[in-house]
């Protein structure tokens, strides 16, 4: 209160309604003002001070009211001790405002509006100019989301661009648990749709946030969930990897995990190529988190590259089918079948048994997932004699015709006794050592070659290191450095015991011979989205041995499938097959020695021998019905080779002479039939070439064990080149002396064996029961009619 007046008189004046009324009616407002020594404020500034006074009213006015209404001025007057100095001005101001003319009251109101506008503008300034950036960030933050649009995973195709693996859109059912309504009802309905128990669903519903209930459900289930329209239950797209050929090539293709990342097989090794590139796009979203506008959407999600495999689906199918049949027939543990395109090393088929269904992993155990073709390591057995022979020939320690004393089937070396299984060979040429698979002979050749050189050639043939094929978990095998070989090791390794190899290494080594001495690393990826795969671009084949040596070994290998060889059953009608059997003892970790019961029977070979097109390996792990590579793996080889040749349109295209159809009579027919030569039979041409070759190399007679001595002898022998030549003809002479060749009856049932004997007009002498275990004469020996044939039968355990 500015004016210092007697409060009592003020109260008297303002407190009396009659006085006020009088003042209003008669005395003009101006007069009143004058009396009070003040003029009514007319300026805005003055008015706003009144407005402030008006604002401060509410609290204090309450006490004032009864006084005014009842007009009992005495009440106030009587109470002098009231703090009138601040009580009084209130009614006075109110009265003064009341006393304003309407036009000024209007101005008062409009001033209030302007004041409010200033407040709002101030607030706007605070929000937009001072805190603007903060709110802008929030608006941007809640209005945009970075989304990743995942590109689709690439396909996997076979060499003829047939789809082996593809991704299809599928939906997953998820729950947003904070939004769930009525757990019980939801779980009941979902349980019937998804086939998950209610209890399990209820468990899933516990907690907060997002949870998957079922991933990659079928379209029907997805639709059912959609139709149920349950709150808090949603469907999201997730691509599902499908393998249209079910189990076919499962080990090669591998599989992806639940998030679509390749975890096995080509899916794993080619993950980088196959995976669709995710494109991160900034999208403006509405409050419902739906994309409204995608910024920079022109960057399309990149679909993963298609990987074209070298696999031929047809061959793969046959390989798997034959392998499974063979493994089951042999009551074996496992098996491998590999088909290579000989010149390029491209894998046409790679079958591993047991197999699995990559579409449904839960139905298989992880042991089935193993791709035995590249993973398992085993002692190759006789198949490694290819290297031994090649090394010896390359180093010119032996020629094919070199005679080797095979010690009549039992050879003591150091403190070890080496036997030739079921044979008792005397003198054999190096070639015979090979195709009759004499361990003693091979051991002696190995001694001739020496540790260092044998190791060197084993390396050259690709053993002891990975082939580099585009498959995961490839093993390098175990090839100890030669410095750590004992003498016994040298002999053992010469016939394939004491080193560990993978099936793929073995077929790679055999393929060296098929490629005239070039080591062609196997590959399984042909192209990636149209461009040649990097591996085939970098493809460098290394020369392991000379062409000449390779041809000589090839010649020896053709004998394997010829009568007298160990794998007559591997022969393919109409073709000359070059190959090698292998029967290796498995190392039994329990007895820490080579097992006498567990074998790995294998056959590796290529066809046609004269210009190899396909190289095939069949390996049967722990066969029970028979143990030897020839009878166990041979027939499987034949079937797979036929399928592979057919895929090359070679098999049906080649005219097959009647005489060639019988594998037993084939070789003799060829040899005895001059017409065959006239036809320009490639095999004969090959044989001629080999004969010439061996003539050059010369012959050495191995008599003793002392390597330096043998070396000296061989040198000597080389000096006496022409002299040794006549001896080479010995096996042939023996062959021509009799009529037919004793077939390999081992593994045959009694009935089959008797049929064969009858066909040869031989007189069987049977002992024991079960299947043929041993026979006399040995397979490949020339037999005449009326000869006796002793068959020992056994039950394989």
């Amino acid at each position, binding site marked *: 209160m500015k004016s210092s007046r007697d409060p009592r008189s003020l109260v008297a004046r303002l407190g009396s309604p009659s006085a006020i009324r009088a003042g209003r009616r008669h005395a*003009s*407002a*101006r007069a009143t003002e004058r009396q009070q020594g003040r003029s*009514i404020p*007319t300026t805005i500034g003055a008015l706003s001070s009144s407005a402030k006074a*008006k604002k401060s*009213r*509410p609290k204090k*006015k*309450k006490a*004032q*009211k009864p006084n*005014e209404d009842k007009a009992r001025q005495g009440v106030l007057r009587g109470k002098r001790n009231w703090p009138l100095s601040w009580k009084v001005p209130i*009614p006075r101001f*109110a009265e003064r*405002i*009341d006393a304003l*003319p*309407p*036009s*000024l*009251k*209007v*101005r008062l*109101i*409009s001033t209030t*509006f*302007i004041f*409010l*506008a200033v*407040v*709002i*503008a101030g*607030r*706007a*300034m605070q*929000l*937009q*100019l001072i*805190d*603007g*950036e*903060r*709110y*802008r960030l*929030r*608006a*941007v933050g*809640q*209005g*945009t989301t970075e989304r990743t649009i995942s590109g689709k995973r690439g396909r996997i195709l076979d060499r003829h661009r047939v789809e082996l693996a593809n991704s299809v859109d599928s939906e997953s059912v998820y729950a947003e648990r904070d939004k769930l309504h009525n757990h019980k009802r939801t779980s009941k309905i979902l349980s019937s749709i998804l086939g998950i128990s209610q209890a399990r669903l209820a468990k899933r519903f516990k907690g907060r946030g997002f949870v998957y209930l079922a991933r990659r459900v079928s379209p029907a289930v997805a639709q059912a969930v959609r139709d149920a329209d349950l709150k808090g239950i949603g469907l999201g797209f997730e691509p599902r990897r499908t393998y249209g050929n079910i189990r076919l090539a499962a080990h090669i293709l591998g599989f992806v995990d639940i998030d679509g990342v390749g975890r096995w097989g080509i899916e794993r090794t080619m993950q980088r190529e196959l995976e669709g590139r995710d494109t991160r796009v900034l999208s*403006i*979203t*509405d*409050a*419902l988190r739906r994309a*409204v506008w995608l910024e920079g959407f022109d960057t399309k999600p990149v679909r993963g590259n298609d990987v074209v495999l070298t696999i031929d689906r047809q061959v793969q199918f046959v390989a798997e089918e034959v392998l499974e049949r063979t493994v089951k027939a042999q009551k074996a543990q496992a098996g491998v079948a590999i088909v290579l395109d000989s010149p390029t090393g491209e894998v046409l088929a790679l079958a591993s048994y047991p197999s699995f269904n990559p579409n449904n992993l839960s139905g298989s155990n992880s042991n089935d997932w193993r791709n035995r073709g590249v993973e398992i390591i085993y002692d190759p057995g006789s198949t490694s004699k290819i290297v031994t022979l090649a090394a010896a020939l390359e180093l010119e320690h032996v020629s094919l015709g070199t005679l080797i004393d095979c010690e009549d089937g039992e050879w003591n070396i150091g403190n070890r006794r080496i036997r030739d299984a079921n044979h008792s060979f005397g003198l054999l040429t190096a070639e015979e050592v090979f195709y009759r698979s004499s361990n003693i002979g091979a051991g002696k050749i190995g001694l001739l070659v020496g540790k260092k050189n044998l190791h060197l050639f084993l390396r050259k043939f690709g053993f002891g290191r990975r082939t580099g094929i585009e498959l995961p978990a490839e093993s390098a095998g175990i090839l100890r450095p030669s410095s750590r070989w004992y003498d016994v090791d040298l002999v053992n390794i010469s016939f394939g015991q004491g080193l560990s190899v993978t099936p793929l290494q073995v077929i790679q080594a055999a393929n060296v011979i098929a490629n005239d001495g070039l080591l062609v690393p196997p590959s399984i990826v042909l192209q990636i989205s149209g461009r040649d795969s990097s591996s085939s671009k970098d493809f460098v084949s290394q020369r392991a041995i000379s062409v000449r040596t390779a041809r000589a070994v090839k010649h020896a290998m053709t004998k394997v499938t010829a009568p007298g060889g160990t794998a007559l059953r591997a022969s393919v009608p109409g073709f000359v097959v070059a190959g090698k059997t292998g029967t290796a003892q498995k190392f039994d970790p329990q007895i820490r020695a080579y097992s006498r019961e567990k074998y790995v029977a294998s056959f590796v070979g290529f066809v046609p021998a004269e210009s190899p097109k396909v190289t095939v390996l069949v390996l049967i792990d722990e066969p029970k019905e028979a143990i030897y590579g020839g009878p166990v793996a041979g027939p499987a080889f034949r079937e797979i080779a036929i399928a592979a040749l057919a895929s090359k349109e070679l098999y049906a295209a080649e005219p097959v002479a009647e005489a060639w159809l019988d594998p037993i009579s084939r070789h003799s027919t060829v040899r005895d039939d001059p017409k065959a030569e006239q036809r320009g039979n490639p095999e004969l041409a090959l044989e001629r070439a080999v004969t010439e070759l061996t003539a050059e190399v010369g012959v050495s007679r191995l008599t003793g064990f002392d390597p330096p001595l043998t070396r000296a002898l061989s040198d000597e022998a080389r000096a006496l080149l022409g002299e040794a030549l006549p001896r080479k003809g010995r096996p042939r002479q023996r062959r021509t002396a009799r009529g037919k060749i004793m077939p390999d009856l081992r593994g045959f049932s009694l009935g089959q064996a008797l049929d064969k004997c009858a066909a040869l007009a031989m007189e069987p002498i049977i002992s024991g029961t079960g299947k043929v275990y041993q026979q006399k004469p040995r397979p490949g020996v020339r037999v005449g009619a009326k000869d006796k044939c002793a068959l020992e039968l056994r039950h394989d355990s």
Partner: protein
Amino acid sequence: MRERKGSKAPTMMPMPADMSAEDVGQGVDRGMALCAAFLLLIGVAAVYSGSAVLAAERFGSSTYFLTRHLGAVLVAICIIFGVLRCPLEWWSRVAYPLLFVSFVLLVITVTTSAGSSANGSERWLQIGSFRFQPAELAKFSVVIYLAHSLAKKREQAKTFSMGFLPHVGVVSVLVCFVLKQPDLGTSVVIYATLGTMLFVAGTRTAYLVLATLGAAPVLLLYLRYYPHAWRRIQVFFAPESDPTGAGYQVYQSLVAFGSGGMFGMGLGGGSQKLYFLPEPHTDLIYAGIGQELGFFGACSVLMAFVLLVCRGLTVASRLPCRFPMFLTFGLATSVGIQAFINMGVAVALLPTKGLTLPLVSFGRSSMVVSALSVGILLRASTEEITYRRSRGRGPRLK
């Protein structure tokens, strides 16, 4: 103080009531007309920008709201020109009929199923395909009634028994029904208008203050009765405490308005209308304008309202007769209060109310009533100019 009007007004007979259309030719207040036009224009743009996505989503056509709004604007312009030709005194004749109609419609809306609901409250009355909000009409008719009644009662308007009580009573009865809908916003506007009109008419400030205090417990009771309104008050004081729940509207409104910055994101460029901002084309249109046109846009809209209202108030203060003066004053105040409450809500100075921004927001009932109000304001300015000219730039009230 030249208390010309205070003493003479009662006896001074209104401006020639027979003032004809030709007199209107003397011009309207250009500033006011421009403000109204500006607001209508901004409104069209903002409604389209705010509603396009919503409309496309809900009705399959992004122009669903725009076409309807444009129709409403057209009607509004027609109304404004129509009202311009209608002497202010004429409105006193329809004061009671309008009040009666409003009352009946409100009763129908609240008591029968004819009222259709939106956002949980029954505000619309459906008659055939015609749908409107009786509360808007009530707001308008209350002003006319008050102007008429206060002018008629002259000095008695200042008394408690003749001035204060009957008006407050009548308006309260109407407001009861508005509150029942519940439409707190419109109720507040009506009461605030009532208060200012009574204040200007000479009712003692003390009565008004006491009445306000007396209403406070009633308001509290009301808020308790409608918990969602109570919740709105709560989140008003802590808008960021519950940004996804009850505070969502306030929070999003703040984010929208604040993110506009100095010049905004450009018309149509705002992101908040993408379902973040509830009612981006009606109640919270000012927040949308703030985001898209920034501080400048928001301030120009604010300025337009201030100009419109203050010009209206000035015109009112210059009018020589009581009824036109009260009428003009009441309508200007009512439009101003509603606009300021709406803008105050958008900048989170006030708790959320379901109020439209006059002339700008989508809402056909609101648009019609706003047009009526603005039309009357413009007519008042015409009459004021005519009056001034007839007096030869005669005495000003200042």
